[in-house]
Structures are given as structure tokens and as C-alpha cells.
């Protein structure tokens, strides 16, 4: 212990959550006379406004330079108490949070004496860590008021318009020669019968009129450097011209790839077995009764979940285990379109829908209802007994088991078999190598948390939206792109971003640049720099997340994480076993 410190210790009852099992008074008493502890108290709820005000007053009055609060998980209240410390003019990084609830009282409800002892050990460790804290300041990065949107499908275009409306400059780039993406091929979409091409045309008009949006088609990202708030991205434009863009954030809306069935999967490859997209095209072009091979179409079988919710098997070693979300809506909506055509032409078409579960969730249920009451027959199949499609001449036969008849087998002679094919992640190795966004086990870009942080990625300042993140309907894609807009706006409109200073720090004397830390870092936050004659590792502050894989691999102990320094960890271990030694 280098210097004398003035530390305040507060132990929380958590209204009984802690004090029912841990004797908090005994814990507070145990450390009261420790060398650097000035005050040690308990509170019923340390997080309450009244308790916080008392602590603030005491920190100021007793001129405390360290604070230890033993309460709940830091996930819950670490930031509460950091804010409180700042209000008491105490550096927030000189406050240490001890988890006395999740890590002590809640897990030792059967042993109150033991829980109290453990509480003392945990608190001692916290105090020891606090004794070695130094004041730190957040790393402030100036952000550039410009955004790059990669992929001009509906999600990308919608995001670009909203970002531009906020006053940010938007570069919207598209790999294909035309903006619009898959929406250009969908035709009329349920539930509101909007035409995909109309949606795209409307968005494009707004984009072309907007002074803040620059749209580049036939363009690709070739490199990316920099970090949150200040990225440099090179984009190749048509004619091999490369431009360099300096942006504060990147929104990735690269979309999906439609699933292509394997040969013979539900008769794929036979004439008359077509994906839903092609059937929709037939419907859109039909100006009389539906014809196939010169004959009127009388029976159509629709097979759902093709390429979605697959089970692992020999023929399918890498299954798409997820639901593609749009297919039930699209297929039942197709059924209603077919009913409309029937009404118009007077030619009946029997529809057999072989489904697994109809997932027309939310407000989409009426579409299913309409399809069913219109006369479409729904037959449920079980994944252990999928429908079999066979061909004889140009006659297609679908064999299935009907759930409602107790699994009786039946044979449907169909003129057309329509496969509702799902979504696949887009294969885009070049872009993946550049952006380095982690992928989920399904191969889509991975968000940090599906519910709580759905458009953010592990790369700060890079957001994902639309079907690049996972299968979605068009409405859901737009919702997620607007969420990404909100997050991007929140980041860039302020003009700066404050990052945690609890990051890696290189001891320039000890470092001899062996490169081990560079290999260990998953965020690319380490660089080689020359200091005079010497080569050493340098930590890019804005990219380091303080994860720490660089620390144990360093053969010379030349790298440490601030806030989790070796001396702090050693002191914590020593302090927590102090009682054990003296026993």
C-alpha cells in the first residue's frame, strides 16, 4: 500500500435481499477499523435518493477519495453509483462496486454465518482494489456528422432518408446497378397490397431529391479503417474510380439471399416445381385462367418451410434451423390473390397448403383466415414425415399425411408444386473481411442482444438492420432500419462520444514487440509503433474494449488493463484471504 487513502464503505441491506442472509452490520463493523477506511455504514437501500444524498454529503464533508459500495450486481447499479460519485466530486473510477447480492446472499441462503464471512472477504477485496485506484477520465472522441449506408434495399434506403432528415450527410452505396434490392421482384405484398416496385420508386424519388444523400450504385466497399465516430472507408465506384469517405458511423443493410433447394428436395428440378417468387410472377402476368404447359392449372400444392426450420440429417448437414418469418405471410397472401383470380376468371383452382405451423403472427392472422375461408385446404405435416413430391410424365404427385385425419396418408395430384423458400445469409466474404462483424450461428450478422441491443454490433459505430441481421418481413426490416437510424443519430448528433478508460495500457519500457498481443486481440486495437529505435505495441484507445486477452499472453508482463491491474488483483486476493491466514 503506497499511500494513505480516505475510503468510505457502504453496505446495503437491499431491503432484506442481502440482510436476510448476510449480517450486514457485522460486515460493516469488520472493516470499520481497517487502515484506509474512514467511514463504514449500512443503508436499507443504497440506491434510494435519500441514501445517495447522504453519501454525497458524507463524501464531501469527510473529503473521501475512494468509495466502496457492497450491494447488488454491478449490472444493475454500477452506473447509478458512478453518477453519484461524480455528483460528489469524486472521480467515478475511484468507486468500486462489490456484489453482495447475486454473488453472496442469494446463493448462500442455507448458511447465514458462512454468507456473512464471505461478505467480509468480498468487501475486503473491494477495499483493497479501491486503495489502488487512480482518477481516470473518459476517452472523448469527436464524431463526424456523416454516415455510410451499405446496401440500398428498402432497409438501406429508408435508413438513408431518415438519417438525412436529421441533417446528417449520407453516403448510400449499392453493389448492384440498380437500387431497390429484392423488393423489386416481390410484386404485390401482404397485408396492404403494396407493390414492391412502387415502394422502391417512392423511396428513390425522395432519395434523389434529398440534398443530404449521395447514392452510388455498382459500388463496393474496399477497405475500412478508423473507429467509432471517425471511420475512413474506401469505396470503389464504377470505372475503377475509388473514393475515400470519412464517416462517423456505418449502417449495414446488405440483406439476404433466397434459399435454393437441393436437387430433388420436394421435387426441385422437375418441371412444375417452382419457388413462390416465380408463382407470384405467373399470377401477376395472368390475364385469364392460370396456365402451365399449355394446360389450365386446376390443383396447386404449396409446401411451407422449404429451407427453414430444417433438422440436421445426412442430406442436410448444415441445416437452417431458423424460421424465415416472411413465408407464411407471403404464401397465405398468395392464396388470397389466387382466390381473386378465381373470382375474375370463374375457373376454380384447388389449393393445398402443406404447412408446419402457420406463423401469421400479430395483425397478419386475418390473411390466413381469408385464405382458409376462401377454400384453401391446409394440411399440417410433421418434420419426421415431410411431404414427398414425385413425378410421372408431367404429372406431379404430392404424398402427405393429414394431421386432422389422425395421420392418414393421401395423394394430391398437382399441376404445380410451389415451394415457399426461406432466407439465407448473404455470402459476401469480401465485405465480411473488411467490416469484421461477428456472425451468429445461422450466418447472419450478429447483434449484441436480440431484445435489448438489436441493431448494435460488437464493432462500435457499426450498426446492422434489415435482413442482414436475420429473416424479416419488409415491415420488420423497415422497423429495424429506423432503430438503427435512432442509434446512429444518438451517436452522431451529440458531436462526441465518451468511451470507458478501463482499457489496455502498454509499459513502453518492458515491451519489446513480439506481436503476441496483436494476435490475441479480437478487436484489432493493437498497432506496432516506433519509439525512437524501439518497436513497441500501441493501443488504439477508441477500439480497445478492455477485454484483456492481451494480458496473459504477454511474455514480459508489459500490458495491463486499467482498473484490473496486476497489483490490484494481487491485493484483492491477499485481502480476501487475510482472515483465513490469521485463523
Amino acid at each position: 500500500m503506497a499511500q494513505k487513502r480516505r475510503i468510505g464503505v457502504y453496505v446495503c441491506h437491499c431491503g432484506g435481499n442481502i440482510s436476510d442472509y448476510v449480517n450486514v452490520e457485522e460486515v460493516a463493523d469488520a472493516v470499520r477499523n481497517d487502515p484506509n477506511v474512514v467511514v463504514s455504514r449500512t443503508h436499507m437501500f443504497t440506491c434510494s435518493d435519500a441514501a445517495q444524498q447522504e453519501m454525497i454529503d458524507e463524501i464531501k464533508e469527510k473529503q473521501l477519495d475512494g468509495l466502496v459500495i457492497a450491494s447488488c450486481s454491478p449490472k444493475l447499479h454500477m452506473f447509478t453509483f458512478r453518477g453519484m460519485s461524480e455528483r460528489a466530486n469524486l472521480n467515478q473510477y475511484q468507486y468500486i462496486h462489490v456484489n453482495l447480492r447475486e454473488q453472496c446472499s442469494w446463493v448462500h441462503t442455507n448458511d447465514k454465518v458462512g454468507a456473512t464471512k464471505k461478505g467480509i472477504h468480498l468487501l475486503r477485496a473491494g477495499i483493497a482494489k479501491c486503495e489502488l485506484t487512480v482518477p481516470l477520465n473518459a476517452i472523448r472522441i469527436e464524431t463526424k456528422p456523416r454516415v455510410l449506408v451499405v446496401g440500398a434495399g428498402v432497409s438501406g434506403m429508408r435508413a438513408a432518408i431518415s438519417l438525412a432528415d436529421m441533417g446528417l450527410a449520407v453516403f448510400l452505396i449499392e453493389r448492384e446497378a440498380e437500387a431497390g434490392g429484392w423488393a423489386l421482384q416481390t410484386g404485390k405484398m401482404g397485408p396492404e397490397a403494396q407493390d414492391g416496385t412502387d415502394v422502391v420508386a417512392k423511396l428513390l424519388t425522395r432519395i434523389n431529391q434529398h440534398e443530404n444523400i449521395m447514392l452510388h450504385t455498382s459500388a463496393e466497399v474496399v477497405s475500412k479503417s478508423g473507429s467509432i465516430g471517425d471511420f475512413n472507408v474506401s469505396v470503389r465506384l464504377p470505372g475503377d474510380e475509388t473514393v475515400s469517405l470519412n464517416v462517423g458511423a456505418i449502417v449495414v443493410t446488405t440483406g439476404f439471399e433466397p434459399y435454393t433447394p437441393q436437387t430433388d428436395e420436394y421435387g426441385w428440378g422437375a418441371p412444375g416445381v417452382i419457388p413462390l417468387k416465380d408463382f407470384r410472377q405467373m399470377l401477376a402476368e395472368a390475364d385469364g385462367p392460370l396456365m402451365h404447359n399449355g394446360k389450365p392449372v386446376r390443383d396447386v400444392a404449396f409446401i411451407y418451410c422449404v429451407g427453414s426450420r430444417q433438422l440436421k440429417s445426412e442430406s442436410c448437414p448444415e441445416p437452417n434451423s431458423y424460421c424465415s418469418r416472411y413465408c407464411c405471410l407471403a404464401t397465405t397472401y398468395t392464396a388470397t390473390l389466387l382466390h381473386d383470380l378465381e373470382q375474375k376468371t370463374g375457373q376454380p383452382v384447388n389449393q393445398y397448403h402443406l404447412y408446419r405451423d402457420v406463423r401469421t403472427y400479430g395483425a397478419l392472422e386475418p390473411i390466413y383466415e381469408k385464405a382458409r375461408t376462401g377454400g384453401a385446404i391446409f394440411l399440417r405435416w410433421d418434420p419426421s414425415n415431410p411431404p414427398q413430391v414425385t413425378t410421372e410424365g408431367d404429372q406431379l404427385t404430392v404424398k402427405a399425411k393429414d394431421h386432422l385425419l389422425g395421420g392418414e396418408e393421401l395423394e394430391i395430384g398437382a399441376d404445380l408444386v410451389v415451394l415457399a423458400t426461406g432466407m439465407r445469409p448473404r455470402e459476401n466474404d469480401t465485405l465480411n473481411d473488411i467490416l469484421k462483424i461477428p456472425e451468429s450461428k445461422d450466418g447472419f450478422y450478429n447483434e449484441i442482444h436480440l431484445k435489448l441491443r438489436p441493431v448494435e454490433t460488437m464493432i462500435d459505430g457499426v450498426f446492422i438492420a434489415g435482413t442482414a441481421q436475420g429473416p424479416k418481413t419488409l415491415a420488420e426490416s423497415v422497423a429495424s432500419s429506423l432503430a438503427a437510424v435512432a442509434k446512429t443519430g444518438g451517436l452522431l448528433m451529440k458531436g462526441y462520444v465518451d468511451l470507458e478508460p478501463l482499457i489496455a495500457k502498454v509499459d513502453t519500457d518492458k515491451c519489446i514487440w513480439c506481436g503476441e498481443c496483436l494476435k490475441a486481440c479480437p478487436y484489432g486495437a493493437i498497432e506496432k509503433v516506433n519509439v525512437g529505435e524501439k518497436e513497441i505495441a500501441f493501443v488504439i484507445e477508441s477500439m480497445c474494449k478492455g477485454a484483456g486477452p492481451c494480458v496473459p499472453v504477454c511474455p514480459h508482463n508489459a500490458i495491463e488493463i486499467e482498473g484490473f491491474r496486476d497489483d490490484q488483483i494481487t491485493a484483492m486476493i491477499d485481502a480476501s484471504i487475510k482472515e483465513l491466514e490469521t485463523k
Partner: protein
Amino acid sequence: MPKVSSKLAAAVKCSDEFNAAACMHCGICTAVCPMGYEILPRKLFRYVQVGLEDKVKENIPNIYSCLLCGMCSENCPAEVNIPENVRFLRKYINENEFNLS
């Protein structure tokens, strides 16, 4: 394996009289049927809806033994007019199986 008949399926679909689309296959109708046949009327209607003509023909005696008492439709939570549907079926069979018209 029973085959789906395009003709029956289309006839059922285009008919205003046969309407079992609202049926949710709860089976109350079968439970209250005084004839006590397992097939009447839920399973039979499923055969008709799907268009399994062979299965319907196999069950002609059952279809004609229906008393049209209306216990089933009285108790149907989905308000399917079951006796009306049986009449439709008899008409279809008269026309297509017994060649009566």
C-alpha cells in the same frame, strides 16, 4: 393410398351450401351424434374438404344414415351448418354415384 379428387374438391369449394371452412376440428359434433359412428360428421367433412372422393364413397351408408337431427350444428362452436352440408353431400353422391338428377 387415397387420392385427392380435383372434381370433388372444386365442387366443394365452389358450393355455397357446403361450408365447413370454419370447422376447427374440435369433435363436439362427433361426440353428440346419436348415431355414434366415429366418422360422423367431423372426419367425414375433412375427407370432403380435402377431396378424398374414395373415402367419401366408402362411407355412403354413413352419409345416408344421418338423421339430420341437428344435434351437431346445435352444439357446433364454429356455427357450421352440418345438416345442410350432409344434404349437399347426398346430392353430390346422387348425381355422381347413383346417376340420379
